[in-house]
C-alpha cells in the first residue's frame, strides 16, 4: 500500500523543511522526499558552509592585523584542509539538526527522488532503484536550484568549477578568476583573496554587486581593490582555454580583449531551477522563464500542487523560501496568512565589508517617480566603528518626500547584515522617518548609523 500523508514535500531545503515543520505544528501528517542531504543547498552547499569559510577568513584577517589592536602574533598561517573541514563539519551539524527536528515533529524523511504522478500522488525512487508511491492531499515542490552553466565556460569540476567545488577545494588556488559578482561570487572572491589567492572578478554589468544601490557597488569595488582584488566590470569571459597547465581566460572589455592566466575559474553566473524529471510537463504545470507559476499562496495551476522557494519567481534566497513555505502550509491548513510582501525582502552579502539592503535603490525610487529624501551616514563618523577599527562603509536611506515612507535602505560595512532586520520590521510596521530618528538607538553601536542616516535625510543629523 502507498504511504499516506496530508502533505508531501519534495525537497528539504529551507523552503521544504520549514514548510514541513510548520505543517506538522498545524496538525498535518507530513513526509519529505529528499534525494541528497536534509537541509538542501542552504545548509549543505550554500548559506551555512560559506559563512563558516568566511568566518575563518575574517579571523585570519585579524591574525594578520594583530598589531593594529596592540597585539602580537607570529607564524600566522592556516591549514587549508582544516578550514574546509570546519566548514563541512558545520554543514553536517546543521543537516543532522534537521534530522532531529523531523523526528521531534514526527515528519518522515523519505530518502530518494520524487516525481509527480498525478495530483495527490508522488513516485519515490530510492537509491537502490526501488520505487514506492506516496499519496498526499497536498504536494509541495521545493526542488531548488543548481549552478547555471555558460556555454563559454563548461564546468569540468577541476579547472572550471562551481560553488560546491569552490567550498571543498583540496588546496588554495594560487590564481583564481571569479565570473559573476552577485553575492556568491563576491563572497568567494573575498574568501580566496583573504586566504592569499590572486583574484580577478569579472562582471558583465558596469558594476559589481549589480543589484545593489550604485553607491554600495562603488564602495564594494573600492574595498575589493584595497585588498588587491582585480575587478573587471563591463567585461565578459568569451573563452576559457584549459588545455595548458592552468587556464587561459579571454575577457572582452570596453578597452578591448584581455587575457588572464589562472589555475581555477569559478563560474558564479547564477542558478538554474531543478524542474527536470519531476512530472511538471506530464501534469501540465505552468512554467515561465524556468520558474513555476503560482498564486499568492503558492498553488500552481494544478489544484493541490504547490511550489515554493528558488523554483518560483522572486529572489532566490533562503529566507524567502522559508517564508513562502510557512505561508503555503498555513493556507493549506485553513489559516488566513497574509501574502508575502516581496518589496520588503532583505538581501545580504557576507564578505568584508558586508552588504545588506532592502527596498528600492535610489535609482529605482527615482525611476518609479518618487520625489525622494536621501540620507547617508558614513561609518567613519561612528564612535563604535572607530573603537572597533571598522570605519569603511555607510548606511544610506531613502524616504518618500511626500508621505515620509521608508522606501529603501542600503548598508555596507561591518555587521550590517545584523542591522537590516530593523529596517524590515520598521517598513512592515509602516514607519516614517520621524519614528526612526526618535527611536533611541544604543550607544555606541553601528546601528546608530541608521538613526543618523534617517536624521541626515531630514537635515537633523548630529555627527556629520
Amino acid at each position, binding site marked *: 500500500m502507498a504511504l499516506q500523508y496530508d502533505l508531501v514535500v519534495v525537497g528539504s531545503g529551507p523552503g521544504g523543511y520549514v514548510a514541513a515543520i510548520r505543517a506538522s505544528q498545524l496538525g498535518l501528517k507530513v513526509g519529505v522526499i529528499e534525494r541528497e542531504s536534509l537541509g538542501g543547498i542552504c545548509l549543505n552547499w550554500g548559506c551555512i558552509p560559506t559563512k563558516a569559510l568566511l568566518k575563518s577568513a575574517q579571523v585570519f584577517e585579524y591574525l594578520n592585523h594583530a598589531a593594529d589592536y596592540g597585539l602580537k602574533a607570529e607564524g600566522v598561517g592556516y591549514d587549508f584542509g582544516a578550514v574546509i573541514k570546519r566548514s563541512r563539519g558545520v554543514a553536517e551539524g546543521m543537516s543532522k539538526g534537521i534530522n532531529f527536528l523531523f523526528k521531534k515533529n514526527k515528519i518522515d524523511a523519505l530518502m530518494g527522488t520524487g516525481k509527480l504522478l498525478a495530483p495527490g500522488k508522488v513516485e519515490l525512487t530510492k537509491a537502490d532503484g526501488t520505487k514506492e508511491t506516496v499519496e498526499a492531499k497536498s504536494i509541495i515542490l521545493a526542488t531548488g536550484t543548481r549552478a547555471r552553466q555558460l556555454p563559454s565556460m563548461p564546468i569540468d569540476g577541476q579547472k572550471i568549477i562551481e560553488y560546491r567545488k569552490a567550498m571543498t577545494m583540496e588546496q588554495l588556488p594560487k590564481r583564481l578568476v571569479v565570473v559573476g559578482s552577485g553575492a556568491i561570487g563576491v563572497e568567494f572572491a573575498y574568501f580566496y583573496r583573504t586566504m592569499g589567492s590572486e583574484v580577478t572578478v569579472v562582471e558583465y554589468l558596469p558594476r559589481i554587486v549589480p543589484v545593489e544601490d550604485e553607491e554600495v557597488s562603488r564602495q564594494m569595488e573600492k574595498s575589493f581593490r584595497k585588498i588587491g582584488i582585480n575587478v573587471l566590470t563591463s567585461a565578459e569571459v568569451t573563452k576559457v582555454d584549459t588545455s595548458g597547465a592552468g587556464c587561459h581566460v579571454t575577457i572582452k572589455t570596453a578597452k578591448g580583449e584581455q587575457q588572464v592566466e589562472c589555475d581555477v575559474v569559478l563560474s558564479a553566473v547564477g542558478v538554474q531551477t531543478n524542474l527536470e524529471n519531476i512530472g511538471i510537463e506530464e501534469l501540465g504545470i505552468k512554467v515561465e522563464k524556468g520558474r513555476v507559476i503560482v498564486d499568492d499562496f503558492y498553488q500552481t495551476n494544478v489544484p493541490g500542487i504547490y511550489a515554493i522557494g528558488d523554483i518560483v519567481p522572486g529572489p532566490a534566497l533562503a529566507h524567502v523560501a522559508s517564508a513562502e513555505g510557512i505561508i503555503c502550509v498555513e493556507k493549506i491548513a485553513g489559516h488566513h496568512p*497574509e501574502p508575502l510582501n516581496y518589496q520588503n525582502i532583505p538581501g545580504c552579502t557576507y564578505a568584508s565589508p558586508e552588504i545588506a539592503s532592502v527596498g528600492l535603490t535610489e535609482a529605482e525610487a527615482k525611476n518609479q517617480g518618487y520625489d525622494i529624501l536621501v540620507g547617508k551616514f558614513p561609518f567613519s563618523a561612528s564612535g563604535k566603528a572607530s573603537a572597533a577599527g571598522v570605519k569603511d562603509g555607510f548606511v544610506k536611506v531613502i524616504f518618500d518626500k*511626500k*508621505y*515620509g*515612507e521608508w522606501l529603501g535602505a542600503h548598508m555596507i560595512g561591518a555587521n550590517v547584515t545584523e542591522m537590516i532586520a530593523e529596517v524590515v520590521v520598521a517598513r512592515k510596521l*509602516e*514607519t*516614517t522617518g520621524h*519614528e526612526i530618528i526618535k527611536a533611541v538607538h544604543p550607544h555606541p553601536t553601528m546601528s546608530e548609523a541608521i538613526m543618523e542616516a534617517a536624521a541626515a535625510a531630514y537635515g537633523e543629523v548630529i555627527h556629520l
Partner: protein
Amino acid sequence: QPQTGRFYSPLVLSIAREEGISMADLEYLPGTGSEGRVTKKDILDYVAGGKKPLSGEASSPKPQAPS
C-alpha cells in the same frame, strides 16, 4: 461601522495628514491588514479612488469637501 480607537501606522497617519483626510473619515475606512488594520495600500487606494465619501458620511463631521 466607525472603528474608534483603532491603531493607525505612522505612514497611514502621514498620508491622511498630507491628503486632508480627517480622523473621523479614517475611522470609516475599511482595513485589509491583520485584524482589520488600515494599511498603506488601503489609504492609498482610497486616495486614488478620489476620496469618495465613506459610509459614515452622514454621521461623521466632514471638514473638507470631497475632491
